[in-house]
């Protein structure tokens, strides 16, 4: 490994990158904000600001808020961070890899959406309390998934 990394010229943005890319970046950053806030309140055991309802605390304090000892919000945060890294990478990467990045973004957003669906089911039918932040994150994931499907359909005409 050469310790002195050479500064290479960044290849120009690919034509497929368009307003969808910016929208996905925006949604991913919003997702990082939501999941980050929930992770933060969970790790520091703070009450969740939740409008007038007590739903957020009920959900956050329920036994469903953790999986294998890790708050589920942290899983969400990791997924959003992975998406952010991939989205940035997509602008910097050669054409032959771009398809794989698009496919990975599709996979992660699908995973996130399915998992959010399960969590929303738990909120609605098991915990019987809805947390606005969690719903927001679920909607962001659905939007990201829809956009990634769109991208894939463009890469694979």
């Amino acid at each position, binding site marked *: 490994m050469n310790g002195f990394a050479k500064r290479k010229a960044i290849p120009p943005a690919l034509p497929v990158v368009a307003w969808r890319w910016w929208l996905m970046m925006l949604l991913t950053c919003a997702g990082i904000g939501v999941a980050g806030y929930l992770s933060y309140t969970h790790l520091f055991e703070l009450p969740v600001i939740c409008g007038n309802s*007590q739903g957020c*605390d*009920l959900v*956050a*304090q*329920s*036994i*469903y808020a953790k*999986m*294998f000892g890790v708050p589920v919000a942290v899983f969400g945060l990791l997924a959003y961070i992975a998406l952010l890294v991939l989205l940035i990478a997509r602008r910097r990467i050669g*054409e*032959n*890899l*771009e*398809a*794989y990045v*698009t*496919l990975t973004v*599709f*996979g992660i957003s*699908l*995973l996130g959406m*399915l*998992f959010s669906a*399960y969590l929303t089911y738990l909120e609605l039918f*098991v*915990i*019987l*309390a809805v947390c606005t932040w969690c719903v927001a994150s679920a909607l962001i994931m659905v939007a990201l998934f829809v956009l990634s499907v769109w991208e*894939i359909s463009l*890469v*694979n005409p």
Partner: protein
Amino acid sequence: MRRMPAARKQGITTAQIILVIGAMVIAVALLIMLNSSRLRRATGGTLSYPTGVTQEGAPYKGSPDAPLKMELYSDFLCGHCADFANVLEAISADYIGKGKLQVIFHNFAFLAPESVQAAQASLCALEQGPAYFWQYHDLLYASRGGGMAAYSTVRLKAYAQELGLDTDAFNRCLDSRAKAAQVQADLDAGRQAGVDGTPTWFLNGQKHVGAMSEGALRNLLDSLLPR
């Protein structure tokens, strides 16, 4: 990443898309399955110690023949009671499961109307069996962090459903306030016994007020156990 250079041409095949979809669906299904089996263990499953009801109608866990007897007065809304319930759960394998300690539970519902409501609900669960009482007890304390709303009628009923109780009987019991008199009687009996805060517990007759750390409780129990 190693495989990538092989795919020179840009584009994603349908097979790849199906592969990714399949992998993700399987991943989520696995997660849900693992999680629900974990939750079943947390919210019930089989208890590792005997449970029952005393002649006075109080639920207990641990053998009645155990050398150590703890009479515990607790409020479901009280944080130190929840801490102490966790400590008791942590030592249960070594002491309650091995016939060294019997814990007899008494409701001392004095903090708020929600305490009374939760206490009544716990007795409605007891009606369906002492093991259900303890599972319900654990679930109530696990949900306590949600504040007062954690013990709303809707949610108390949801816990019962979650544990697989007979919901018709449970809801009838809760709605009719069938256990109101008993909860009040338990409170009066507790006051008579000298309880004025929670958790208060009598270990072989010796009064202790407040929660205790797991280590301290283990030491105390060991010092009282016959050699």
